[in-house]
């Protein structure tokens, strides 16, 4: 079977919670992890007679996301009711936006190897409310409405993605942007960042799109990739064996690692959209858009480009350092006193991210202040301490949170570059090892390392190795 004759065409629909204190249409808290039905009121429980009141903060965050994704911001958009019956949906309609979303068009740039970028176009971004959560037990189903009415935006891409890797890059970039602009925490495991995938395949070079399937229930980036790979392979096999792909919705089964179609009853809905009469049109004045634009932080793509240009970093390093705003901010806090920002990049990518990952804490809590790490690296650059001494000091500072200078002094890690002392130590070692000296001079160059080790030992490990090398070379040569 010739899989290479086909290409995948993929579009993503991402639902993400917005980081607001209160819900979309009522004053209830959005805090995650509370006891069942603790964050509820008559409005988000769909009691008779209640009315929605739009949370302005949601509009600001949606517009901010739209600007970050280069969208056109609609000066006037409409909320609609989307009707379907489900126990976790209190009104049995969801307030969403249908024909007139708050953001239209736009694109997300994903890294496409060696600093190049690929534009993934967006169809739209719209605001809607989340539903509650059904919990199925042996003899009963329970509903927790804490999540009901939590603000969501749905970000719909054009089918511009061509592989699971593309999809993964898009999701990482999108999440990174959302976190940069503080619109969403992007936590997939808490359900605050969810993704549905539309997949079709077609013969390479074909202009027409194939029949697509929609895959739901993807709650990790890894599942998205696996589901796409599985589904692309499945569709190609269907076509190659003379079959037809059915337009249907599939569920990802993370245990069996396969997609399977949902029963038609589960998704065959006529949503009967119509304009929500309880909410006036959403007006976003140009002045508000400008105000939000002015307050936008530097976005990951811009920061990546700047790191490559100004710091001379590679695309990979720039990507790792800018993926999270806090990492990039930290990195930029380390660099100021350094001649070579690459050493800061290496340090952040290895030491800092390792500790952050191990402790599971944000960087600001996990490691000493960026300026102190900068001070450590400056001492390495000035050959005042060795790289190993810096690592030792860093480990101590994780616990003590003392300054770099104090830590180096306390632990006596300062490097000895005093040529007199080192020369004396060299003389003593050479005098004590006449046999080794003779062998060395007889041509066993490998013994140089032995002499360096002996001198370093005699200096208590604090001597500058470069100085030892220089002096030893002269003295051994005789």
């Amino acid at each position, binding site marked *: 079977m010739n899989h290479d004759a086909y290409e995948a065409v993929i579009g993503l629909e991402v639902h993400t919670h917005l980081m607001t204190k209160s819900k979309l249409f009522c004053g209830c808290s959005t805090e995650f992890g509370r006891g069942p039905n603790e964050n509820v009121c*008559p409005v988000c429980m769909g*009691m*008779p007679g209640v*009315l929605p009141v739009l949370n302005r903060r949601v509009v600001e965050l949606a517009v901010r996301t739209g600007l970050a994704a280069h969208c056109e911001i609609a000066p006037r958009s409409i909320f609609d009711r989307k009707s379907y019956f489900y126990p976790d949906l209190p*009104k*049995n*309609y969801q307030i969403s936006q249908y024909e007139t979303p708050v953001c239209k068009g736009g694109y997300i740039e994903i890294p496409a190897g060696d600093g190049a970028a690929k534009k993934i176009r967006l169809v739209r971004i719209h605001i809607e409310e989340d539903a509650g959560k059904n919990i199925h037990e042996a003899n009963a189903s329970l509903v927790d409405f804490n999540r009901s009415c939590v603000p969501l935006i749905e970000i719909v891409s054009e089918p511009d993605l061509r592989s699971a890797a593309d999809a993964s890059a898009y999701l990482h970039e999108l999440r990174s942007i959302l976190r940069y602009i503080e619109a969403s925490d992007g936590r997939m495991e808490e359900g605050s960042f969810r993704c549905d995938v539309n997949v079709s395949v077609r013969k390479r070079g074909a202009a027409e799109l194939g029949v697509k399937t929609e895959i739901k229930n993807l709650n990790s980036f890894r599942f998205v990739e696996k589901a796409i790979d599985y589904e692309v392979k499945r569709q190609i096999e269907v076509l190659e064996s003379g079959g037809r792909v059915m337009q249907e919705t599939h569920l990802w089964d993370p245990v069996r690692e396969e997609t399977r179609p949902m029963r038609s009853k589960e998704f065959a809905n006529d949503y009967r959209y119509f304009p929500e*009469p*309880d909410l006036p049109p959403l007006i976003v004045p140009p002045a508000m858009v400008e105000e939000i634009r002015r307050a936008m932080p530097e976005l990951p793509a811009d920061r990546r480009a700047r790191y490559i240009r100004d710091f001379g970093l590679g695309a990979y390093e720039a990507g790792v350092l800018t993926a999270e705003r806090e990492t990039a901010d930290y990195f930029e806090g380390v660099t100021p006193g350094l001649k070579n920002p690459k050493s800061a990049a290496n340090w952040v990518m290895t030491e800092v991210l390792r500790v952050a990952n191990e402790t599971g804490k944000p960087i600001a809590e996990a490691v000493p202040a960026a300026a102190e790490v900068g001070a450590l690296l400056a001492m390495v650059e000035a050959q005042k301490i060795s790289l190993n001494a810096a690592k030792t000091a860093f480990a101590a500072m994780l616990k003590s949170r003392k300054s770099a200078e104090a830590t180096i002094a306390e632990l006596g890690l300062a490097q000895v570059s005093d040529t007199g002392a080192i020369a004396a130590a060299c003389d003593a070692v050479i005098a004590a090892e006449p046999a080794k000296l003779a062998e060395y001079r007889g041509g066993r160059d490998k013994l140089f390392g032995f002499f360096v080790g002996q001198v370093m030992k005699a200096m208590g490990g604090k001597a500058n190795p470069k100085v030892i090398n220089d002096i030893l070379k002269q003295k051994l040569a005789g």
Partner: protein
Amino acid sequence: MASPSELNRLTIANAATMLRKREISSTELTRACLDRIAAVEPRLHAFLTVTNEQALEQAAAADRRLKAGDAPELCGIPLGIKDIYATKGVATTCASKILGNFIPPFDATVIAKLRAEGAVFAGKTNMDEFAMGSSTENSAFGPTMNPHDLSRVAGGSSGGSAAAVAADEILGALGTDTGGSIREPASFCGVVGIKPTYSRVSRYGVIAFASSLDQVGPFAKTVRDAAIMLRSLAGHDPRDSTCSARAVPDYPRALSGDVKGLRIGVPKEYFVAGMEPEVERSVRAALKQYEAMGAKTIDISLPHTAYAIACYYLVATAEASANLARYDGIRYGMRAAAEDTIALYEMTRAQGFGAEVKRRIILGTFALSAGYYDAYYLKAMKVRTLIRRDFERAFETCDVIVTPVAPATAFKLGEKMNDPLTMYLSDIFTISVNLAGLPGLAIPSGYDTNNLPIGMQIIGAPFAEETILRAGDAFERSGAVTLKRPAL
């Protein structure tokens, strides 16, 4: 001075004065109303719930406040509340089995406002189920009888409120009006009712029938009483995004009694074949009376009137189909026994809703369905705009528009129950006002040969409540109509 047993006959304005002068107490007034309720309810069935104890507690609290001085005008006044308003801790059924056991944990905004003023709530009044109907016969708990003739309907959907005011069970009442549900029962029962401009009064906590049409309004015995109540009800509410922030005028102050120079539009489309001659004669006589008082009548045309009923039954039912989706047996209200979730929905809704509610949910669902949306809902919205423009044009040449409220007086119980289309025509003169979002006042203009009240409708431009109240009050004061107290 009224005898203690007749205090319930007082107007709000008079009772408020007497309460302030300490000539009567709210407790005495409330007791008189509760006694009257106990006496006539078995024949009338205007109430679904009578809250005796709470009413007397509220009356006692009002008396304390009146004694301390500085009490608002509605302090201590016994009122009836249509059972469509969420009342904290008191059953709120919307006259439906599906909410038969529902006790809201919150107050509607207007209920909270009245509570804050110290008003006394005598109970929850009967209505057509979910306000869908024109006779209160669609109540799941039995119809309300017309106090003027117990074999006839009280009108609807706010029939309980209208009948209770007409029968002196209470001094005033709250209704809601989606297509005529305040004005038609006011007309049938011979009391005053006003549907304010859409957005004038908060809808928060008012169980929704058709969100873009529903509006809160009062029933009272006089135009002045209606003006007093409206002043307390109207105003901005942060819980209702469709509620106007416009300042609330002092409506009673607008009642000057003067209509000199008032331009009254008389739309030819509202005086048509099929209406009862006695109704037309009564409204025409009222127009003559206005002319005698110095007003001018002008013939006008509202050309899209013929499409109003069709338009209304698409827009209202479409909105209702979504609004009533929440009654599913999951979170509150009735729940039918069932094997699975789908069956739970189906059985709960099959058993919980009455025939007219089901009919309208099905109509509305159809109108919004894929493939029909453009032809029905979207078209209806366009017609709605045309109807609104008819009125805008008309108000360029007149200040108010006067029409009959309904083409006929109160009909017999059961007469139209098997013929929904004829029933829908009861609202033919009131529906356009909701579609256009305008204020409309219903006041008695006379009686037919069966001694049944006839109602006149005074329609105003958006937020022209003061003008229509002034016109209604001037007519009431002219003495052209001698009000008849129901015999009962």
